[in-house]
């Protein structure tokens, strides 16, 4: 790991120097941060006990997040198919391959929240913008994973099907799909879980779901309600992860 002990010590020293520089470089309001510790205690006190009395609003937000995640996963799965085929080097002609790869590489760098705010500007506030955001991110993620699987298929079946005089579509359906479908299902299930997690946050920019409820409660200093929402989000995310692990274990 990075050569000898001296090299390692030098690297550590450089990193420490970077940390010092970055802390001095950042515009930090120290008195305000200092007061923050008192505020944190105050906030925790006001968060307890969590207020579940407005459970209708809470339930509605949670349900919207879940629906957004499911609809987006399916839409993303449909959208990813052409993208994945284009992004597989062994199937697509080079210009198409490069274009699809560029879309995947650049698309992945944008955080869901950035995509969400652009969709909110296009489609207005609400769950539709959120759904489209997650569908877009899912399509790119799924296409990347599936394209890699397609590139790694065994060439034997592909050549065999092609030798029978099959058209491109038939090669895909009979030689490629059977080899990648199980892994693709696993990735898809994982993506549902990821979408569930992201659906709780994109509401912060107005793209629907529980995030919108949470952001609203925070701006109103309604901390006991925020605590209830945070607990529900944590439960939902933990449940989603457990579900996705369970399904993927059964797939194997």
């Amino acid at each position, binding site marked *: *790991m*990075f050569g000898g002990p001296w090299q390692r010590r030098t690297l550590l020293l450089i990193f420490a120097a970077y940390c010092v520089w970055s802390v001095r470089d950042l515009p930090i*309001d120290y008195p*305000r*941060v200092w007061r*923050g510790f008192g505020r944190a205690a105050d906030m925790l006190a006001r968060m307890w006990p969590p207020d579940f009395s407005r459970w209708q609003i809470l339930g509605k937000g949670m349900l919207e997040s879940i629906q957004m995640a499911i609809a987006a996963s399916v839409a993303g799965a449909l959208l990813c198919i052409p993208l994945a085929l284009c992004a597989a080097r062994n199937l697509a002609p080079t210009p198409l391959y490069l274009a699809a790869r560029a879309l995947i590489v650049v698309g992945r760098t944008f955080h869901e929240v950035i995509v969400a705010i652009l969709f909110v500007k296009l489609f207005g506030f609400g769950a539709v913008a959120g759904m489209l955001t997650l569908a877009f991110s899912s399509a790119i993620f799924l296409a990347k994973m599936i394209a890699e699987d397609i590139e790694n298929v065994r060439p034997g079946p592909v050549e065999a099907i092609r030798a029978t005089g099959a058209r491109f579509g038939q090669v895909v359906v009979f030689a490629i799909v059977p080899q990648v479908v199980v892994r693709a299902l696993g990735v898809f299930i994982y993506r549902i879980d990821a979408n569930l997690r992201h659906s709780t946050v994109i509401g912060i920019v107005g793209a629907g779901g529980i995030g919108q409820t949470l952001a609203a409660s925070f701006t109103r200093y309604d901390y006991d309600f925020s605590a209830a929402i945070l607990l529900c989000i944590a439960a939902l995310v933990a449940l989603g992860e457990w579900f996705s692990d369970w399904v993927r274990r059964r797939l194997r």
Partner: protein
Amino acid sequence: MSGVTPPAAATRERRTWQRRSRGAALRAWLAFAAAAFVTAWSVSALDIEWAFFADAHAQAADLLGRMWPPRWAYLPQIVKPLVETIHIATLGTAIAVVFSLPVAFLAARNTTANRTTWLVGRGILVVSRSVNTVIWGLVFVAVFGPGPVAGICAVAARSVGFLAKLVAEAIEEVQVGQVEAIAATGARTSQVWTMAILPQVLPVLVGTAVYRWDINVRESSVLGFVGAGGIGLYLYASINQFAWQQVTVILIATSVIVLASEALSAFVRSRIS
């Protein structure tokens, strides 16, 4: 001599080959139907105004038209917030590394003191991991006020669970030989941890931390949306002012630093393993 008995195969009814048994096929269809039903329910409940989609391509073209060409004169103004974004990711990750070790030792079955401490460790993992960085940002902005400190804390809070989970798994899979050898010399528990376990999990910790760092650069790019510092603040402001040509510059710049950090992280990780 009674009559000739027909061969066994002929008496058996002829069966065509089937991929699945009847039960498995039924189950597969049920799973498919359930998935279709859940999807239909989700889509219908979202109240999608399909008419909106009719002119979506025109809207998108309009937006892209406003975004082009990028206003490069804006670039010098966002250099500082871009650097700030990287600072937030790096410092947040560094703090997370420090806190993740004790949490990992609590959450690993073979090093935790008892069932209660294990549950505490696992609880920290679940809470840290299940709350998104941006939501942590929202919380810490309420505590420390707007600014990079809230962002650093948010990144650290989310990363602690991520790092500690993987390190705890590494601790559970540590080679017992070295642990027993150190223990046999009469070492105290703390010495066993630092001499036998830590050296074995350190590569995992460093590798995971570097991997998490490049995720964190991407996460920090939006922390400004909730006021937690970095480039997100400028992006949010530019969008709200409809300064679309500035938005393009910010998006390109963000993309570049995220890609650069991914490349750097991949390079460092390739050197570690």
